[in-house]
């Protein structure tokens, strides 16, 4: 019998969660008693979602008696600190936030714990947790390791983390500018290409804001166009295919984005890309849904009330990003159970709504469809539609991806964005290096 991805996640969720069902009432009420007075240390990045989360922590301590210590770091420094901490016999972190790309590496190095034993422990699991309510693509993308390709849902996949700060890609655009120019919101990549030119020539601002800094940032920007244009990094045998027609088309499109966008894109990280759009320097923004939390905040945005949202334009297929942040329990945590309780509390239905109200990113279907929150964030209707097309195989989340991402693709693509190399030369030039990295990692290619 062949099970599709959604059925597998559903079944796994029921199995994992079902163990906790017979237990409720007194056990549930005393879930926290054993850990009251203890401290949990959580390692988080400086990120809007986690800024919102921090405001919820006093409530957790009040409800449970468990104190929370927060170790907040710049997102670029998160991994090296986590690797150091998680390598010690006993680490300082009971809960850690990770970027989706690290999940395979952490599991392959045996640094994080599978979550099934925690959810199967009636003394810890919340019977009202409702794992099925978690947006399936987020759960698969952030949480599952060991399935097909090592990171997809399917036989062998185990849950190692929960999505918290997960995201997909959508198009944000300036409603006022589009109306003034009588411009149609791009639905396809052909429309998108034309819109770049029109906006550049007629709007008096950059067309599309984008990341472009060397390393992960420019690769992220390229991947945003690679998938919808029908490309991929590897073929089914793990041979590089990123330099094929679709890969070149995606990079040429990104070069157009640089040529028509706000000045300086090849130096933009996520912060600069967001700022350019929020400060009215670009008419469109194609990236993370996390922007929604700040776009209507007058303290951070000059485009309040002028932004509408649309699906990621369609190329040869409809596709949107899967990625973002998750929470996991290090293998060497001092208080793993208390860490789990905090993770479970933060990702509960009630707290997911609470963090969303504060500008965080929702990870549950019930939050995305909540009437009050949809009133606060009407864009959730578009986001929910985009999630139907979110591709869990957006990028190959294998343990060596970070190296390929930053040290190989991140250099070549950056060279193409500054005009030092053509799109074809940049991509062809990276094939030997990526092949070598894959061979060193044990792939027989």
């Amino acid at each position, binding site marked *: 019998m062949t099970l599709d991805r959604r059925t597998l996640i559903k079944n796994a969720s029921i199995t994992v969660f079902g163990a906790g069902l017979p237990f409720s009432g007194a056990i549930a009420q005393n879930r926290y008693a054993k850990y009251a007075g203890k401290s949990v240390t959580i390692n988080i990045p400086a990120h809007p979602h986690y800024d919102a989360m921090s405001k919820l922590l006093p409530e957790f301590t009040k409800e449970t008696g468990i104190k929370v210590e927060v170790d907040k770091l*710049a997102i*670029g420094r998160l*991994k*090296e600190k986590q*690797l*150091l901490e*998680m*390598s010690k016999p006993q680490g300082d972190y009971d809960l850690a936030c990770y970027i989706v790309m690290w999940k395979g*590496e*952490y599991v392959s*190095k045996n*640094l994080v714990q599978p979550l099934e034993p925690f959810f199967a422990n009636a003394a810890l699991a919340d019977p009202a947790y409702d794992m099925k309510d978690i947006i399936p693509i987020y759960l698969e993308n952030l949480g599952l390791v060991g399935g097909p390709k090592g990171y997809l849902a399917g036989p062998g996949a185990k849950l190692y983390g929960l999505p918290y700060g997960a995201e997909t890609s959508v198009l944000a655009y300036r409603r006022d500018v589009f109306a003034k120019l009588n411009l149609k919101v791009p639905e396809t990549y052909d429309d998108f290409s034309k819109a770049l030119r029109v906006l550049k020539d007629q709007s008096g601002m950059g067309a599309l804001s984008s990341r*472009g*800094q*060397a*390393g992960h*940032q*420019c690769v992220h920007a390229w991947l945003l166009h690679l998938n919808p244009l029908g490309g991929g990094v590897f073929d089914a045998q793990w041979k590089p295919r990123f330099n094929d027609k679709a890969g070149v088309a995606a990079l040429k499109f990104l070069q157009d984005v640089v040529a028509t966008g*706000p*000045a*300086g*894109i*090849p*130096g*933009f990280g996520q912060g*600069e890309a967001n*700022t*350019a759009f929020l*400060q009215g*320097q670009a008419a469109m923004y194609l990236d993370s849904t996390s922007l929604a939390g700040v776009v209507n905040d007058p303290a951070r945005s000059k485009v309040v009330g002028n932004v509408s949202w649309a699906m990621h334009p369609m190329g040869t297929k409809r596709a949107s990003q899967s990625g973002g942040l998750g929470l996991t329990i290090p293998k060497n945590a001092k208080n793993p159970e208390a860490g789990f309780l905090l993770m479970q509390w933060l990702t509960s239905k009630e707290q997911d709504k609470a963090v969303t109200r504060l500008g965080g990113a929702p990870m549950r279907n019930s939050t995305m469809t909540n009437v009050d929150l949809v009133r606060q964030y009407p864009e959730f209707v578009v986001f929910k539609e985009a999630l139907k097309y979110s591709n869990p195989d957006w990028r190959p989340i294998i343990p060596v991806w*970070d*190296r390929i991402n*930053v*040290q190989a693709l*991140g*250099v*070549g693509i*950056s*060279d193409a*964005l*500054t005009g*030092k190399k053509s799109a074809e030369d940049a991509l062809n030039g990276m094939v030997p290096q990526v092949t070598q990295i894959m061979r060193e990692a044990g792939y027989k290619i």
Partner: protein
Amino acid sequence: MRVSRWTTAIYLGPAVLVMAAACLYPVLTAFQLAGFKWEMGTPWDSAQWVGLDNFAAAFGNEQVWSSLWTTLLFAGVCVAAEMVLGIALALALEHPVRGMAIFRTIFILPMMIAPIAVGLAWRYMFDAQFGLINAVLGLFNIKAMTWLADPTLAFVAIVIADIWQWTPFVFIMMLAALASVDGAVMEAARIDGANWWQQIFLVKLPMVMHVIAITLMMRLIDAFRVLEVVYVLTFGGPGNSTEILALHIYKTAFVGQQMGVAAAVSVLLLVVVAGLSWAALRLSNPMKDDA
């Protein structure tokens, strides 16, 4: 007075032990690590001995040599500019002038700021859209530049940030050195008819040459190790135009997880810095007279 060998050993012993623990141990560990294939986050027991393979991988990688060239260029330009500016500032401000204490304090402020903060501050200042630098250039009708998005300008940006932060170090070292110059010697030079330039270049600066040499050496060493400012400002880009060797080592170790290869490149960096330090000390070695 005859001093026993034991007395010397007792006085010097603790310092030698501390130096060995703090300096020598990490260097020896780097050499050891360079012989193994090991990833951070895995047990050391799982490390594989690979002999000189990591050195072969490091030296066979053209990105290492391109990073070394970028580093040499960066260090050369930065240190030369810092030495000239620092010495000039010290000469200008060595005499008591009203408000001098405030000037001196302001001048040394940059080197007290954490490098990460320096990187962030300059990242905002070089921003193509909202940066202070472009705003100032705009006052002179100079077109806004995409500082961090152009390989040449990005290199200029990291050089400017380094000069801004470390010129004060040269300034403070030189100020202390100039204060120790014997006034009688300068008086004699004046009486002998030396003009201002001759007093500076033929008398004053040669008298503080040992401090200049030490300062030059310290700045060279630091310029080769600079990491945070470049990490924050450009992350080595665009392309790898600002990927100095320290950043290459960082990426190899913490992104690529090739700790052994990173250690091998570190050894290369150590050799280069040691060679340059030796050359700087050849200029004027303050310890030579004590030998």
